[in-house]
């Protein structure tokens, strides 16, 4: 599904990612762990098409060169990024935003756009699954939401848009245990044989709830070790500093 070959990314002449390689097959869950400044967020930004990086190498998503696609086209193709810091958008109603987003993606995929009633039915169902306060959907997008609510809102969007590849950028940071479980349940319910996940995190904690197939350790812009879930436990006990 996703093939990253020799990815190099610089920002303001500072190298962030270097010789980065990763392959994710349909249905797989990959976790990337690494210390602050190792390039985790840069990776998720680049996969989503954020501007401002000098990049080289190759990223193929379903055999299509991602560098040729704009951010919204990547979303249309099924890439979703759950933001580490979801933005507050004043004046934009959450429900209307969700509907605009879903229909933009459905339209691009050649599917019928949902009308208001169909959409509300879907969003109600998903909100209930994620124990997301429905009343909040009538508020301005993320404005006045707590940290946990913002993260849950990301997962709600993910579940409504049902992407092929979901990238979770430190979705667990700032969540209490209850919220963490809800978020993990949300992710697990989306796990299907052709949906893949890339989970970026500092801590092993989230991986107790979402069992990854592979764990990669990212340091200084490249993957220094890959393994199964046990690698996360090893990291947790040794710490990044003593790891090598």
């Amino acid at each position, binding site marked *: 599904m996703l093939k990253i070959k020799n990815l190099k990314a610089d920002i303001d002449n500072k190298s962030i990612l270097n010789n980065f390689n990763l392959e994710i097959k349909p249905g797989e869950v990959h976790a990337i762990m690494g210390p602050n400044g190792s390039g985790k967020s840069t990776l998720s930004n680049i996969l989503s098409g*954020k501007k401002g990086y000098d990049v080289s190498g190759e990223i193929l998503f379903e055999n299509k060169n991602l560098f040729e696609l704009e951010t919204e086209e990547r*979303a249309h193709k099924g890439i979703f990024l759950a933001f580490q810091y979801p*933005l507050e958008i004043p004046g934009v109603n959450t429900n209307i*935003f969700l509907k*605009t*987003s879903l229909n933009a993606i459905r339209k691009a995929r050649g599917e019928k756009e949902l009308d208001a009633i169909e959409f509300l039915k879907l969003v109600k169902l998903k909100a209930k699954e994620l124990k997301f306060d429905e009343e909040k959907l009538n508020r301005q997008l993320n404005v006045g939401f707590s940290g946990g609510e913002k993260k849950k809102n990301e997962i709600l969007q993910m579940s409504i848009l049902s992407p092929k590849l979901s990238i979770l950028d430190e979705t667990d940071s700032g969540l209490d245990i209850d919220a963490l479980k809800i978020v993990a349940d949300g992710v697990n319910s989306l796990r299907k044989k052709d949906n893949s996940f890339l989970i970026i995190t500092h801590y092993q904690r989230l991986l107790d709830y979402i069992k990854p197939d592979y764990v990669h350790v990212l340091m200084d812009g490249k993957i220094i070790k890959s393994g199964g879930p046990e690698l996360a436990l090893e990291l947790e006990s040794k710490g990044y500093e003593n790891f090598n």
Partner: protein
Amino acid sequence: MEEQLKIDFEKFLENTNFSKKNVEIKRKNFNNFIEKGFPNRREENWKFSDLNQIISKNIKNLSFYHDLSKPNKIDQSIFIDGLEHNKLVFVNGRIEKIEFDYEEKNKIEILDDLVLEKTKNTNNSLLFLNNAFVSKYFKIIVKKNYFLQKPLVIYNITNKDLVSKSINLKVDILLEENSSLKLIELSNDKSTTNFININYNFDIQKNSILKNYKIDNNSNSNIKYCFNNINQDTDSVSEIFLLSSGSKFIKNEINCNLNGKYASAFVNGVFILNETKHHEIKTNINHIVENTKSYQLIKGVLEDTSKAVYQGKIFVDSKAQKTDGYQLSKAILLNDNTEFNAKPELEIYADDVKCSHGSASGSLNEDSIFYLMSRGLNYQEAKKLLINGFLLDVIEKITDTEIRNLIKNIMNLKQ
């Protein structure tokens, strides 16, 4: 210009039937205008908008005489659809229709040939000009205890025939005790490069409510000035909303005197400007007695090489304890060549007051755009959603639901 002005003024007096007293006052105003001329940037009030320069740059051979003897046809297609309303229609500065079909007849009184009063302590040269050249001076009186059933829309239409003229309109509105009026002013201009000078005087008596929506939305090359003087008595409310968008230049000036306890004034406005448009909102909110309240929220979205100015002044008299005054202005600059000037002024002589002001301007947040695009919206859609969200905040302050929806429609903000 002065020679031409004098000729035009004499011609105007000759062709209009004014009483002797009226002529005398008009001459006085005319001389005052001749002495002062159009305001320029040396006056503090006009430092961001040099009207003298703007007029000479944009209007060739401005003529002060305009024949008002023949009636004009009204293009009915510009009337607001889907909103029952009373009408006052000006075409090229001439009153063509006064219609209060939805109201009880004896509850509205219209005086249509008022004699000017001596202008009290003003040195506003544009008021002198207005007083000198206004041909019919109207007054609308809403009687005690009467709430108008439907809004009044004042249409200010100019058509293609009107070129490089100076047009002056003056309307007084009196809301007697415990009455209410919703007033929409809608301009529609197909004319070119005129100077349109409007003066409203509102007198809002005890317990009365004025809601005034000023809509300048259709693109035109006219230069406009609108001076609004508002006097408010005890427990009265004024709510003003400005959509400042269509004209080449417009300055809306609001002078509001909160003369009675518990009077409150709300001024909300949006600038939506492109090309070389230059708009200004200038407010003077005068808290004269205690327990009065004012609230101002102005937002702007500027494109191309447009320029917006907001000068907001809150004055608190030494007697006006427990004043609550608030003002905030924000602008999104879509381009490096746009300009937003904000000058908040607080002049406070009482010690037990709550006043605040703030202003911010910047470009659209690229991270927000990226967030929306990552959800499948293209750049234009994301930008539009953010801008609409930014402006909606002000639109939501409009307390009348029907008119709020109308304005959302006009602004293409319907979700």
